[in-house]
């Protein structure tokens, strides 16, 4: 079974390599959205510093949501998903492997570049560290929840907009505590409470999402 999982991960990473732009684009989207806000909101630096954590987190949320919406779409359209469903391993395991690969390709880079964006917004050192930590714990949760949304909307024409719609409400707590952690850190309160909550979300969603997504896929295939 592990071999099969490794194959899925390797395949998805290989596909990402073939299509290097994919990962790069999620990243660029993240950067661009975070830079849009100052434009819309206006250039007052104090104001910007206040909204920075929220903006960066919302941008991360949207970027990973976009990339996720089509997590299974290609596999569904070309029949690969049918084959996965007929493979001798549990579908949930494949789903977990796909999510992991996806996070490595499009979640991790966000975590790594976030400090740069934070610098732009003039955040302090601790705030930056906390931003990274919160994203490190939070973005996998986004990937996991996004996968469920992607599975439930498989094959629907409107999935591009449906996924955010289904998933955003679930990810609101992640956003609140993620951005909250940064704010707490930059106001010197310590972000530990926020981060442990995020950790709890991660554990729960890691335990449940793959199963939920697998069920969604089987329903879509019937």
């Amino acid at each position: 079974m592990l071999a099969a999982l490794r194959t899925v991960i390797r395949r998805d990473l290989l596909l990402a390599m073939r299509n290097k732009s994919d990962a790069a684009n999620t990243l660029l989207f993240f950067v661009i959205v975070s830079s849009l806000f100052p434009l819309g909101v206006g250039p007052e630096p104090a104001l910007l510093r206040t909204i920075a954590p929220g903006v960066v987190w919302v941008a991360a949320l949207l970027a990973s949501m976009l990339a996720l919406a089509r997590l299974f779409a290609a596999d569904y359209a070309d029949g690969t998903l049918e084959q996965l469903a007929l493979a001798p391993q549990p579908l949930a395991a494949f789903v977990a492997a796909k999510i992991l690969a996806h996070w490595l390709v499009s979640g991790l880079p966000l975590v790594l570049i976030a400090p740069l964006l934070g610098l732009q917004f003039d955040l302090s050192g601790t705030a930056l560290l906390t931003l990274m930590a919160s994203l490190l714990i939070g973005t996998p949760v986004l990937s996991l929840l996004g996968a469920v949304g992607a599975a439930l909307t498989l094959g629907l024409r409107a999935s591009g907009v449906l996924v955010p719609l289904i998933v955003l409400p679930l990810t609101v707590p992640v956003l609140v505590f993620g951005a909250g952690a940064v704010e707490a850190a930059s106001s010197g309160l310590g972000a530990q409470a926020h981060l442990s909550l995020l950790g709890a979300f991660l554990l729960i969603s890691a335990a449940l999402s793959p199963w939920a997504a697998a069920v969604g896929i089987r329903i879509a295939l019937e």
Partner: protein
Amino acid sequence: MKPRHKKMALIAGGLAALGAAAALVLNAFQSNLVFFFSPSQVMANEAPRDRTFRIGGLVEAGSVKRRTDGLTVHFNVTDTAKTIPVVFSGILPDLFREGKGVVAQGKLGSDGVFHATQVLAKHDENYMPPEAAHAVAQAGKAQKTVIVK
């Protein structure tokens, strides 16, 4: 319509659209699309009320006064026609000088004083060695045009 006429009509339509666009752009630039407002505009109530905006102009010579705390500064911003008093507490940019350009961001208080949250120096497009600047300043006393060799 013959194809040729169709094409002409399309091109004419496109040109008309571009012309109208140009007219709109010109119209816009005659109005107030600005990074900062001049004191005259502020006095003429052209600047926003009750919210932050920027004023820009020259720091009036001799108007800069520091409070004893060393951080709070009072100065006047002028565009030679109108003048607005500004109060700011924080670190001023190195190029903040009397008689030089400045852009301040903040709110206009009911007392007519502009409470700045950020002060930026706006320099002009002149670059010259100090001696030349001195010479120019001397000459400028005689006549107002700036000449640079």
